[in-house]
């Protein structure tokens, strides 16, 4: 099965590069070479599968391309239509032969466990994300032939993949949609919004199939959806309707962006930029990063080895330095593999936005900028939900109805802007609307009603706006179907803080509201303070550390004889002894008896709370890669994970949130 999937993939790539402008200009040396390489692979693959016709067609195309390359500037341009035609023939032929081959061999085993769903999921997912994007593009510019071609090809490929995987309904849905698009392509059908709805509904169904296949691939027992409901009826009906309109007598289909849309894949990243890209399993990526981390440790052990230093050999020293440089370069590159552009999440928002605007009585356009800004893929994925919520809010609460906008002298179409910019180790994502702005009086009234602030409290405008992030606060007075789901901005804030980011809001009455999300570039690496107590080393995220001090005579006080507190510039901070944390485990090397006065105090902050950790020694500041301790240990109170330290041993990263939350130090004010 893998060979077949590979062949389809190769053909897709061939078609893709034949139809790109770079080739049309008759050049692009690397582009040409890549196409040639793919064609050679296609021929080899076809040979292995004993698809004689395909093999020959591929070789023929190679010859044609070689021929063209020999005559640069000459007949190069003239040959293009022939190359395109040959490439399409090649694809058609290969599919015919593949189908015949599949029919001849055993009937496709449907949806059994152990099927190679992985390829299907991986490929189809990428095409689906493409489809959504292209459909939205087509809706905005119905005359765009590129979009129609791209859509046609994507549905076509999914059809092939579904046939190989043996899921009949998905194949039929893709096939019918492809037929519709073919008519658009040949000019016998016009692009209409109902056509787009239909195609989106097909994509949604295929997305469900892919999601199920993904679960199957991970060994879970689920069934591949084989019931497309009314979708197929709609598709057949649309095909019969020759007027070019895709409307039907059936109840209108409402495509809805599935909440768990086919997850963004890292590989999509580079593909969008028209650069060549390789698809890599993310677990391999993580493994690579792990191994590079080890290499860095091994390299530093070698470089700092006293025996080698004693040699005093200039050549060895030079080579070691070279090794060091290469290692750190390699580490940088490996770390950069984890990042993906934020654009893929923006594209998902475009889809949500479209559905929202159709459901509400608003008129609006979505503007995006900075799609290229790159972030750790986990962050990009986890930004999706908060962003979706904020786009919802903007459409639902932010923008006024068209008639109100006209009265206010604004353009009828509201504008929502989604942008990303880099700012010193962070990415700032902006969600803004040009709607009515937040009503400060109403926010304050509501906050008083809910008991969040006292009646008559004097708050600055910024403080008032910040109230919308308080738990249980919701500005909308009536609950609507779209955003009134009991999830408020407090959830958005929490999610962003979980990513170690921050949310800010700015608003001007009548002009609009802007939310700024500031998130770190990566979750994998943190600046950390490495501390030592007894024989154990612990890691504290540096951004939580407020100060480090050696207590003096008047610093430490005792409350009711049991709880120690530190008095720091008139502020009372409870002391938490690290050995107390360890003592509850079996391996705690408790340095009993050492009074807190002899220890170092590291004051850490989490939310509004501060705690002074009492410990033996501060070892220093260092960048560490955060690693999970594994599922087996489960969630351990007070432990956020582990990190591999410079000497190769593991240090425990403390989770200050849970430490402070649980110990219940209510004293911090």
């Amino acid at each position, binding site marked *: 099965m893998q060979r077949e999937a590979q062949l389809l993939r190769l053909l897709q790539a061939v078609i893709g590069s034949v139809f790109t402008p770079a080739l049309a200009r008759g050049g692009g040396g690397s582009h040409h070479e890549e196409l040639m390489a793919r064609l050679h692979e296609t021929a080899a693959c076809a040979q292995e599968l004993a698809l004689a016709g395909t093999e020959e067609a591929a070789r023929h195309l190679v010859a044609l391309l070689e021929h063209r390359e020999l005559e640069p500037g000459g007949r190069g341009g003239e040959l293009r239509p022939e190359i395109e035609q040959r490439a399409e023939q090649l694809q058609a032929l290969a599919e015919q032969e593949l189908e015949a081959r599949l029919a001849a061999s055993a009937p496709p085993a449907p949806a059994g466990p152990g099927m190679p769903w992985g390829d299907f999921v991986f490929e189809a997912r990428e095409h689906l994300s493409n489809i959504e994007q292209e459909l939205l593009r087509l809706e905005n510019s119905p005359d765009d032939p590129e979009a129609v071609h791209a859509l046609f090809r994507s549905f076509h490929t999914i059809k092939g993949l579904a046939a190989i995987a043996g899921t009949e309904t998905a194949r039929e849905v893709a096939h019918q949609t492809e037929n519709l698009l073919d008519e658009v392509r040949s000019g016998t059908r016009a692009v209409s919004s109902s056509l787009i709805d239909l195609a989106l509904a097909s994509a949604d169904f295929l997305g469900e199939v892919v999601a199920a296949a993904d679960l199957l691939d991970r060994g879970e027992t689920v069934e591949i959806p084989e019931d497309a409901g009314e979708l197929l009826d709609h598709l057949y009906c649309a095909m019969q309707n020759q007027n070019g309109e895709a409307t039907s007598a059936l109840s209108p289909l409402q495509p809805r962006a599935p909440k768990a849309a086919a997850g963004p894949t890292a590989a999509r990243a580079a593909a969008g930029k028209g650069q060549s890209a390789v698809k890599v399993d993310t677990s391999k990526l993580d493994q690579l990063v792990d191994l590079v981390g080890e290499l860095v440790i091994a390299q530093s052990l070698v470089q700092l080895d006293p025996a080698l230093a004693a040699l005093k050999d200039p050549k060895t020293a030079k080579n070691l330095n070279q090794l060091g440089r290469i290692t750190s370069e390699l580490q940088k590159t490996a770390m950069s593999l984890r990042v993906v552009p934020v654009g893929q999440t923006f594209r998902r928002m475009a889809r949500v936005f479209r559905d929202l605007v159709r459901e509400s009585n608003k008129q609006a356009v979505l503007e995006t900028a900075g799609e290229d800004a790159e972030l750790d893929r986990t962050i990009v994925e986890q930004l999706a939900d908060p962003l979706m919520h904020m786009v919802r809010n903007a459409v639902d609460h932010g923008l006024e109805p068209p008639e109100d906008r006209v009265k206010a002298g604004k353009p009828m179409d509201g504008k929502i802007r989604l942008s990303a910019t880099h700012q010193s180790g962070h990415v700032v994502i902006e969600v803004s609307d040009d709607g009515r702005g937040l009503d400060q009086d109403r926010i304050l009234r509501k906050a008083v009603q809910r008991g969040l602030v006292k009646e008559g409290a004097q708050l600055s405008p910024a403080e008032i706006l910040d109230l919308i992030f308080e738990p249980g606060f919701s500005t909308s007075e009536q609950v609507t179907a779209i955003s009134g789901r009991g999830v408020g901005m407090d959830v958005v804030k929490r999610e962003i803080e979980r990513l170690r980011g921050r949310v800010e809001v700015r608003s001007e009455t009548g002009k609009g509201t802007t939310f700024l999300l500031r998130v770190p570039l990566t979750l994998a690496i943190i600046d950390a303070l490495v501390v030592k107590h007894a024989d154990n080393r612990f890691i504290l995220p540096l951004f939580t550390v407020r100060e480090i001090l050696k207590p003096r005579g008047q610093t430490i006080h005792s409350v009711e004889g049991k709880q120690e507190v530190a008095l720091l510039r008139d502020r009372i901070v409870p002391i938490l002894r690290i050995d107390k944390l360890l003592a509850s*485990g079996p391996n*705690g090397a408790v340095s009993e008896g050492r009074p807190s006065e002899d220890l170092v105090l590291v004051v850490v902050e989490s939310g509004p709370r501060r705690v002074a950790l009492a410990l033996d020694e501060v070892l220093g500041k260092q960048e560490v890669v955060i690693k999970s301790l594994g599922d087996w240990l489960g969630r351990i109170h007070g432990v956020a994970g*582990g990190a591999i330290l410079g000497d190769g041993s593991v240090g425990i990263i403390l989770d200050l949130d849970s430490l402070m939350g*649980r110990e219940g130090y209510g004293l911090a004010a």
Partner: protein
Amino acid sequence: MEDIAQTMRQDLQGAGKFLAFWLGKEEFAVPVGRIREIIPWQEITPVPQAAAYVLGVINLRGKVVPVMDLRLRLGMAGQDRGLRACIVVMQPDAKKTQSPIGVVVDGVSEVLQIQPGEVEETASLSSGWMHLGYVNQIAKSKGKVKLLLEMDSVLAGPMEVPADAEEPELAGAAKG
């Protein structure tokens, strides 16, 4: 490469190959299909608040891997580690999707073939020092007795109540 290794392991498992090791005077055996590698004893970083039999975590080529003391897990008395003590890295699930777990044993002795005919069910054994459910079968091979470890029970998630789980109970108690 990895696929081949995987297939080989499965083949071996099918053929009834076991890794034998000892704890005190008892000899145990586990199917080799579940063994990833055997590594020498090394410094282990303790994890605060973890279950008693969790010794801590180690760095296995850049991955953080938890390590358990099999003596404590099974309910045997702990003792100082001898020179032959080592860490057997095992796979909690046959599908290899979960991350591996290190298991400290007093020493490994051999890889041996155990035929189905040599295996006996043993219900009464667990009455002694050992917690229930960890050994249900016993094998007699070459005149020696090997306890067949139930890998799924041994490598299942920590059974002691995690520290976090206490809170709801406390809240409940306060109400009542």
